[in-house]
């Protein structure tokens, strides 16, 4: 039976995050031909709506309000529940982002429904859909079914491919006006630490450094390699704790969860908390002086050696490859 699916679109600094498009693709699979309605919340988001249509949404509903300029669970919760009340969707998809993680349990609790968090794959369609998610810090997986009621999931970024963009596709964009009251949280300030350039959680190539990088300057060769490959630089907790880089680069259970096509770990030992954030990567390369380092156990390719020798050589080789290509 076809289902109406509601998808939360998420913007960051004025642009939609990729996971918004991936969520539409997930919704498509759950919908079995039913309608896909994207929702955008914010103080000024209307101009982003057509992009969602091009990626597969049939309709877009926007709720604009000054109180929605910054995310709060109260504000976004009120807006989204009003949309849900109007649309009565049979399934809901969010990205498993900081926002999605914070908001989804509130909505699920309010609706008294189940919620399958951090889904990395969907098998089957519609009512038969089974959701795959990592458990035990990524060491195992479970397949989960939603018994009855609204099917509500959050998807891990970079795991479900978005639909092919169709520039000719059109769809209705409407706005809903919602009264947003009684916010119990007031955001005073957001200290942005994430660097510009490629968003780490959406990057196709990640070059990550650990304590083996030894200093802030030690990250420079990694940055150079990332630039050549159009990727982003990440780090282990060890490197962040040692002040070699900012915590916004941290990958792992506490930090960002990444699933790039290529993950290069340089001077990272491979603690389970780090693996939890990257073990789903398609190809993992380990560069480490210690042949016994745990990271080699999850690596597809490994080089035992000094990262300060290996990384610059890699950069040169990739440059040559790019020139020849």
């Amino acid at each position, binding site marked *: 039976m076809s289902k109406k699916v509601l998808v939360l679109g998420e913007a960051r600094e004025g642009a939609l995050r990729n996971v918004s498009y991936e969520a539409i693709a997930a919704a498509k699979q759950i919908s079995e031909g039913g309608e896909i309605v994207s929702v955008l919340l914010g103080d000024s988001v209307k101009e982003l709506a057509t992009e969602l249509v091009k990626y597969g949404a049939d309709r877009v509903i926007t709720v604009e309000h000054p109180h929605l300029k910054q995310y709060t*669970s109260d504000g976004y919760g009120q807006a989204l529940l009003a949309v849900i009340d109007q649309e009565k969707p049979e399934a809901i998809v969010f990205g498993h*982002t*900081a926002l999605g*993680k*914070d908001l*989804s*349990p*509130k909505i*699920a*609790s*309010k609706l008294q429904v*189940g*919620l*399958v*968090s951090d889904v990395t794959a969907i098998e089957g369609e519609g009512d038969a859909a*089974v959701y795959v998610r*990592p458990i*035990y*810090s990524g*060491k*195992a997986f*479970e*397949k989960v079914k*939603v*018994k*009855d009621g609204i099917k509500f999931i959050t998807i891990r970024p970079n795991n479900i491919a978005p639909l092919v963009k169709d520039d000719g596709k059109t769809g209705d964009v409407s706005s809903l006006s919602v009264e947003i009251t009684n916010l*119990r*949280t007031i*955001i*005073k300030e957001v*200290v942005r*630490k*994430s660097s510009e350039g490629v968003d780490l959680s959406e990057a196709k*190539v990640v070059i990550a450094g650990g304590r083996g990088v030894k200093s802030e300057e030690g990250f420079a060769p990694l940055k150079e390699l990332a630039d050549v490959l159009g990727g982003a630089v990440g780090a282990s*907790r060890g490197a962040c704790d040692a002040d070699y880089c*900012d915590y*916004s*680069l941290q990958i792992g*259970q*506490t930090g960002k969860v990444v699933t790039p096509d*290529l993950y290069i770990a340089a001077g990272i030992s491979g603690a389970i908390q780090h693996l939890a954030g990257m073990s789903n990567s*398609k190809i993992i*390369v*380990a560069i480490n002086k210690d*042949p016994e380092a745990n990271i*080699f*156990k*999850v*690596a*597809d*390719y490994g*080089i*035992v*050696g000094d990262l300060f*020798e*290996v990384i610059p050589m*890699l950069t040169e*080789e*990739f440059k040559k*490859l790019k020139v020849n290509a």
Partner: protein
Amino acid sequence: MNIYVLVKRTFDTEEKIAVSGGKIQEDGAEFIINPYDEYAIEEAIQVRDAHGGEVTVLTMGGEDAEKQLRTALAMGADKAVLINIEDDVEEMDQFTAAYIISEYLKDKNPDLILAGNVAIDGGSGQVGPRVAELLGINYVTTITNLEINGTSVSIKRDVEGDTEVLETSLPLLVTAQQGLNEPRYPSLPGIMKAKKKPLEEVELDDLDIDEDDVEAKTETIEIYLPPKKEAGKVLEGELAEQVKELVHLLHSEAKVI
């Protein structure tokens, strides 16, 4: 201040994990307090020491979870509660867990509830916000700093590496992120004292919960280990040759570049 900490007994995921009969093999496995809950316990103790009051650690689970509760008492919590569901609940999900926990808390008037931001085994991060919603109180997730002044609360939270500075008020539920504090180890006198601290055990009947009320909304139909990766290729030979080979492999074999 009336402070509660939600503590989950979890599998130590640093250990080897095996699956048999569609279940995670638990025999002989190490169980610990969920690491993010340790930050929550530590913060609760610090808040109590600064503002007075009482810290109660609460877990829902089986008899075995008493060990983790005793550890929390040894760290410095005052009281413990075990909601023992061993004989009553056959299936469970985050809806069930949050419902049971909130039914216990609903007449306890907590000022502050602390939880972990995520359990390292189940990994959903749902239970904290769900409990807050069921109790009708506000929540803030992944906090790295907490300051309480009367009923006003100033918080810093981690948002994908950015820091959000916010103000809210009690009653409140917060979930702990790494960086909030350095959890203390239980001291020897602490361990001795913990043995005498009150540990209350309740069952669903005591909470007037009917099994049907807590029927899970989702169902795990399979648990499995990821397909064993072929042992990675550790390259050999001259370093320059290794680097050339790696670039070639990434380009032609793995096709990621």
